[in-house]
């Protein structure tokens, strides 16, 4: 048994023994149920945080170009790192044909957080013919009222000055050349705030009124899409819904390969090593020479299946697990891979109702500001701030720093799948 595995087994045994002995002592009345126990376990959520895990083993830091290769960001049109999604792109092509034939078309592109919805939407520009026009826009925040909605929509469709009424915006769009209008991050319309319906209705009316001229493509986070469907029946206005599934193992493998290639890391050793079975997590012996870059693919092969299972086809999580498992030997200076260590999310069970409802709202809305949280939960500024900051410090939320008053919080991207699954199972998210 190698060191990390021994470390993991020892830690689990110690936790188990601590739990059993603690319970026994509690039954005997020797040890009260300590609130400190919950505190410690909740804080353990941070153990899974990238910063912590990076520090845990890395005596020698990983090469910068390797880390840069796995940076997570939406991929621009034509980016070589965009892979897969052929079936979904074909569905878009079919919709494009229908639109060119004069049929009114509004399309929704739906995906879970981290499944590449924004990247997919940006690739659509490449599917158009030369003379066709494409406009991509994303919502930056939740529309506050009808005026704000009109201002946002005006900007989105390329109107230089915000218009005063929906009619004028429709008129403006009808005068424009037919184009594909892509609206990303439309989950902002799914807010559970009094008056949010007005914004959504305004957006819907604009799309419906101009669909004979323009092809609208709207990107939603899955739960937001479901929510506006349940609450407002919005799905009836869309002709097609392209849902982006999780990446398969093969697609994930492609993701890794393409990113390594794009980062300029050589792949020649892949065929030479080809050691698919065995060597699972052990030192890589298949590659001799070629340095760190040459070793990469053969390091990936034995862990790819586990990466796919642990990440459930979510690329950023797969990247994280892979980087977490990689280390540079202190003496050999060669890259090796250790067994993947799954993250432990059991402390999520200790969250209380208010925290779970907050996470569920953030999951369904994409993100919440303190003001949004106050409006949804009818709480005070301080209470909302306290709760969101607490969840942020538990590494469950990521804070987009814009100052305290304007800070927005979203689910920690790496954990979004796990949190969503937990919330669904606990009946807070649907």
């Amino acid at each position, binding site marked *: 048994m190698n060191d990390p595995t021994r470390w993991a087994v020892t830690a689990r045994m110690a936790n188990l023994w601590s739990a059993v002995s603690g319970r026994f002592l509690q039954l005997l009345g020797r040890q009260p149920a300590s609130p400190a126990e919950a505190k410690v376990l909740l804080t353990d959520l941070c153990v899974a945080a990238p910063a912590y895990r990076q520090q845990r083993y890395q005596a020698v830091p990983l090469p910068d170009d390797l880390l840069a290769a796995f940076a997570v960001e939406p991929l621009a049109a034509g980016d070589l790192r965009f892979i897969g999604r052929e079936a979904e792109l074909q569905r878009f092509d079919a919709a494009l044909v229908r639109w060119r034939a004069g049929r009114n078309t509004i399309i929704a592109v739906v995906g879970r957080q981290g499944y590449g919805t924004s990247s997919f939407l940006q690739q659509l520009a490449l599917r158009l013919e030369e003379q066709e026009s494409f406009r991509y826009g994303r919502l930056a925040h939740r529309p506050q009222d009808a005026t704000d909605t009109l201002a946002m929509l005006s900007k989105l469709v390329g109107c230089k000055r915000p218009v005063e009424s929906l009619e004028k915006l429709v008129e403006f769009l009808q005068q424009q050349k037919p184009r594909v209008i892509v609206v990303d991050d439309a989950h902002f319309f799914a807010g559970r705030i*009094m*008056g949010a319906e007005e914004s959504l209705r305004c957006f819907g009316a604009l799309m419906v009124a101009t669909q004979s001229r323009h092809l609208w493509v709207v990107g939603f986070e899955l739960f937001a899409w479901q929510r506006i469907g349940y*609450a407002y029946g919005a799905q009836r206005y869309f002709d097609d819904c392209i849902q982006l599934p999780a990446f398969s193992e093969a697609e994930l493998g492609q993701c890794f390969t393409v990113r390594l290639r794009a980062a300029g890391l050589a792949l020649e050793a892949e065929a030479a090593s080809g050691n698919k079975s065995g060597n699972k997590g052990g030192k890589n012996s298949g590659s001799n020479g070629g340095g760190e870059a040459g070793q990469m693919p053969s390091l990936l092969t034995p862990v790819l299946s586990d990466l796919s299972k642990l990440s459930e086809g979510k690329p950023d999580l797969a990247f994280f697990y892979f980087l977490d498992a990689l280390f540079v030997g202190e003496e050999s200076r060669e890259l090796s891979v250790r067994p993947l260590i799954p993250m432990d999310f059991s402390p999520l069970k200790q969250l209380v*109702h208010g925290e779970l409802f907050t996470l*569920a709202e953030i999951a369904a809305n994409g993100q919440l500001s303190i003001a949004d949280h106050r409006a949804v939960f009818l709480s005070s500024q301080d209470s909302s701030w306290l709760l969101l900051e607490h969840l942020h410090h538990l590494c469950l939320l990521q804070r987009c720093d814009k100052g305290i008053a304007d800070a927005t919080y979203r689910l920690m991207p790496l954990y979004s799948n796990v949190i969503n699954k937990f919330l669904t199972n606990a*009946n807070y998210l649907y």
Partner: protein
Amino acid sequence: MEQDVLAQIVELLSLTMFTRVALALLLTWLLLRVLLFGTHKLIDHYPRYRLQLGQLFPVLRIVIWFLVTAYIVFRIIQPPQPVIFAVLGSLGLAIGLAAQGGVRNLLAGVMMIFNPPFRVGDMVEFGGHYGEVIKLDLSVTWLRTLDDNTIMVPNSVVLENAVSNANSGELSEMVVVKIDLPRSVPVQEVQSLARQAAIASPYTFLKKPISVTVELRHDYDYLLRLIIKAYVIDIRFERLHASDITGRFIDAMHERSIALAPPPANEGRARQGGVATGPAS
């Protein structure tokens, strides 16, 4: 004959037999504790299915006790036929005599397990009490009311009376919020606000429909009754849900300066607008 039977019964009694019976009972009790613990663990793991899982234990308990009783009688005690008939006869007599009391409740409990009018976790109303079923014993049913009182109801009473079950094994449940308003309010605007308040509540289960209706009623004066019907995501939040919708609605009315009470001219004569909430029945 009676003396023979008594003698046979006395012959059966021995320290070994008592020890074995005690051991069987102890093991059964332990098994049931383990099953209860396991059920709770499963519920913790799958909170969404807690109502379905919660109904497993009462059924398992009665099946296990039945099997253990049969095992004790036929494998440990092994009484001769005359003793069996004598005991069965006595039992029959006892059941007949006690049918008005505890045994009646017991039989009702057995019937309820195989043909349940509700399950553990359901929100029910009977005998003027409304609350969550927290435990189903063989002879009694335990309710926890919204005021956190625990109420014990004999099972025979449950079977003999009408029972209103608000959620029937589902986690979501319809909550009805009734708000009385002065008749002068703008009806459509108020309906729209009520609907928005229901959608905005984090406790509302949006998968199920929300309806807002109005009706005219007379209580010293003409009033407009607003009836908001929405499903709560989990029965545990029923009161919070109703209160949240009401609060949001009232806040929205204040924001728009819509009066919640009749004009001052009617003061002293008219009853002010009020709020009543409760589950659908």
